[in-house]
């Protein structure tokens, strides 16, 4: 069980942070294009899910999975989107993504006057705490697969 990578977007589609732990295959496009693709896809899926849902929506789009990986999604009312790719063994992790938002992003970026909002996060403290947190998760193992 493992975490492959993590994206953090803001309301305007700016990729605030990206980290990877186990990624064996790259997308074949530049990182900027990759972020745009990811954000655009999330935007479309969210709107698709809400339109086509046969029942009343509760949380909306939460995750999708392929035969190799699972993409987990969490969005706050302020438009901050946390996207985590894990392997298939990982169940719902809404609370984990919420913790990344509240205990890491809000505490170390929003409350840091030297991190301007709407730009990629430069804070080393944020990067290192996020890394430690991910590595401490029960479904993260240092060896992929």
């Amino acid at each position: 069980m493992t975490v492959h990578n993590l994206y953090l977007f803001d309301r305007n589609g700016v990729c605030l942070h990206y980290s990877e732990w186990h990624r064996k295959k790259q997308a074949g496009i530049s990182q900027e294009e990759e972020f745009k693709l990811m954000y655009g896809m999330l935007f479309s899926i969210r709107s698709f899910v809400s339109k086509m849902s046969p029942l009343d929506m509760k949380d909306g789009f939460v995750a999708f999975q392929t035969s190799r990986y699972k993409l987990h999604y969490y969005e706050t009312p302020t438009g901050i989107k946390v996207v985590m790719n894990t392997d298939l063994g990982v169940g719902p992790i809404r609370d984990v993504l919420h913790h990344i938002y509240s205990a890491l992003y809000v505490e170390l970026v929003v409350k840091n006057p030297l991190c301007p909002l709407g730009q990629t996060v430069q804070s080393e403290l944020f990067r290192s705490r996020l890394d430690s947190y991910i590595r401490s998760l029960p479904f993260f193992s240092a060896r992929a697969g």
Partner: protein
Amino acid sequence: MADEALFLLLHNEMVSGVYKSAEQGEVENGRCITKLENMGFRVGQGLIERKNTVLLLVDLFRFTKDTARFKDELDIMKFICKDFWTTVFKKQIDNLRTNHQGIYVLQDNKFRLLTQMSAGKQYLEHASKYLAFTCGLIRGGLSNLGIKSIVTAEVSSMPACKFQVMIQKS
């Protein structure tokens, strides 16, 4: 917890507001630090005038009225380190040192206004801007307790910082 975030965010905006209306340069930087320090001074003066402060200090002076000047001073500094710091930052000063000749060093190993900034050297050059208000806070509190002082701060590795208080003999 809401008011802690409020003070933090407000303080950060205050610093950026003061710097926004200034130009670049050493002189301007000094002026901004002074402005922030003076704001802190007024807040410190007001903050120290609170009911439980009075009660605590009545106790203090009852016992130390006739003793040597530096003992009053030391008790007041301890008060700043414990009660005053707890009121503002919800924790106490971690270490107080003195040379018994009017110089005190207050060490806070996890200064609340710096903990979310960095855990080491990143952003170190900006740290002094976020300490100026608190220096004024200490100076203001001491001033209304009858102590004139000069307060400076230094940071070598965030979020630990030291506030140096130099008592001015009147």
